[in-house]
């Protein structure tokens, strides 16, 4: 007959064993940790955006939506273009109507609830367009916060989402300082730009790069010193977005000014 002490002891052992998920043990696999942390393959995809060349036509957004099957009418997009209008008074006005899918068809600035704001040409000090997309951060906060490991970084630096495993908690959306993530309206899981990874795997370039008529968007391999994109990044004055978050973004901008958010 089991006494109470023995019963409690056994019960504790069983409870402990049951509550310890097998996956927890996997965390300590040193081989995998090493592979994840120090893999320095021969490829690291990076992006180069030349702000001076962008005219805000929105072809990139259109191409992206079609290529990646993000519903055309849905008010979310893997990539978008922002218009910046800085007035002579120092006011910064920004908009991106429909993620600039159809370009910027009006000179009025879309201020959402505040309506369309008219700015006359005489008031404008400077204006430019800034394409945005996922920064494929070297230190991605979205990967860090995913509770189930459904979003992960590939060896060549691209952050992907496993649609079969994402639980749709939205923590990654909250964790991204750049607002590039959203819930896919059809699959109901986290969605983001992945530089068209399926195309890269076939030796093609991203759909937006292909669609840009002005060469404002380019993709390259940072590990290849002969890559023209790498040459520009290493020799010219490029900048990244929101450096202060320590995410180490890998989308580089040429001609970016302080007004860019």
């Amino acid at each position, binding site marked *: 007959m089991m006494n109470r002490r023995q019963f409690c002891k056994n019960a504790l052992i069983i409870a402990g064993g049951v509550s310890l998920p097998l996956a927890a043990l996997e965390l300590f696999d040193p081989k995998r940790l090493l592979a994840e942390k120090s893999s320095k393959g021969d490829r690291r995809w990076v992006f180069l955006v030349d702000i001076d060349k962008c005219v805000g036509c929105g072809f990139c957004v259109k191409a992206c939506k079609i290529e990646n099957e993000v519903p055309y009418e849905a008010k979310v997009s893997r990539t978008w273009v922002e218009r910046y209008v800085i007035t002579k008074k120092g006011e910064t006005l920004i908009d991106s109507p429909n993620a600039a899918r159809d370009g910027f068809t009006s000179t009025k600035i879309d201020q*959402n*609830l505040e309506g369309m704001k008219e700015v006359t040409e005489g008031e404008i000090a400077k204006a430019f367009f800034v394409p945005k997309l996922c920064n494929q951060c070297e230190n991605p906060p979205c990967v860090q916060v995913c509770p189930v490991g459904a979003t992960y970084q590939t060896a060549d630096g691209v952050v992907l989402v496993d649609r079969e495993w994402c639980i749709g908690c939205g923590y990654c959306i909250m964790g991204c300082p750049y607002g590039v993530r959203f819930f896919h309206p059809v699959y109901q899981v986290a969605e983001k730009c992945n530089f068209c990874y399926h195309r890269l795997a076939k030796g093609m370039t991203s759909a937006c790069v292909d669609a840009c008529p002005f060469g404002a968007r380019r993709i390259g391999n940072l590990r290849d010193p002969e890559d023209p994109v790498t040459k520009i990044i290493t020799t010219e004055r490029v900048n990244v977005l929101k450096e202060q978050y320590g995410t180490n973004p890998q989308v580089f901008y040429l001609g970016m000014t302080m007004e860019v958010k």
Partner: protein
Amino acid sequence: MVHGEIWTLKELFVYPNEYIYWSIQIVMYPFMTGLVAGAFVLSSLYHVFGVKQLKEIARFSLVFSFALLPCAPLPLLLHLQQPLRNHHVLMTPHFTSAIAAFGIVFMTYGMIVASELWFVFRGHFVTRAIELKEKGTGIADRLACALFTLLTLGAWDVSEESLHSDEKAVKFLAAAGIPVACFLHGYAGFIFGSVKANALWMTPLMPVIFICSAIVSGIALCIISYIVVAKLRNLVHSRLRRNTGLPVSKALQGADIAIVIITARYLLIFLVLAISLELLDLIFRSYTAVKSWEILRRVIYERDFVKIFILQYGLGNLVPFILFLLPRLTIRRAATGALLVLLGVFMMRWNVVIGGQAFSGSFAGFMDYRMPIIPVSLETFREGLFGALFVAGMPYVLFWIFSRVMPVFDVKEA
């Protein structure tokens, strides 16, 4: 329609993909966990620190904490876009994420509360099982007998010595439960506090603020529930007495003001702590005035002024503070105060969760949350008023069920 589009209003420049993704259910999540943790800490004040005056409410709040427990992850479940995949958190936890450990922390805490309850009520289970075995002839009696027999887990020994060791176990579990309860809730604070992309959330004070306000809300809910339940019992029994002419015992004369007064004192201590920390955070932010302060200032002092300063600090903190401090506390005043405290804590959760999404990551625009009221679809139910009410009402249903087997009032001391 995109998730979040229905209830998000955008103003000025907001990134195209930004919406209020974390809505009312994520407000409910820390609110409910807070109540769980608070109720448990209140019961531990008696079991561990021997605050004798809290004896009656201790048993009550322990059972209540257990009833609240399953309702803490409920809002998370309702909020998930893929609720059927919820078990992935347990199957493949990704431990760099603050949410990944939720299952483990939560289950540890659940096991502690469950075992403490068992030790508290074991004597009662045995007595009931024996009673029912002796008199039980009907099917209901036999079922009840089987239930109580099962609940004893085969430990039939109710000798003085054995009951004494039960008490020791209760004391140990209650003590072990305090840090775990605080961890459970501090951890909810960490989930928010560690989001570096959110200027309002990111502060190391967040877990501590959450713990203090959790205890405040837990105690407040226990006070209200205690008063209401005592009143209901009083009403039922006075009707019975009128019919049968039996005298009513002291325990059935409604809530005991002495218990309420001492409980309210603990509430005040934690309330002062919570407010001090929150104000420290606010002062620090405005004094250091880093890049994000300009947009935060506009949210805090302009857009959310009523929600923060009138509803949360004013009605939710200051008014109950005065109500509790004024001499000659009455049951009615205590109930009003506790209700206002609950409102204050709820508003605090709201102002953190929704307030944290009230501005764009671009710092150039704002978002407004319009909570869906009428549930026209599953989504507007889950993330709307009725979903929240469902979560808020659930603990009472469970409490009623649990109190059938674990009586919370006038039990012979085991």
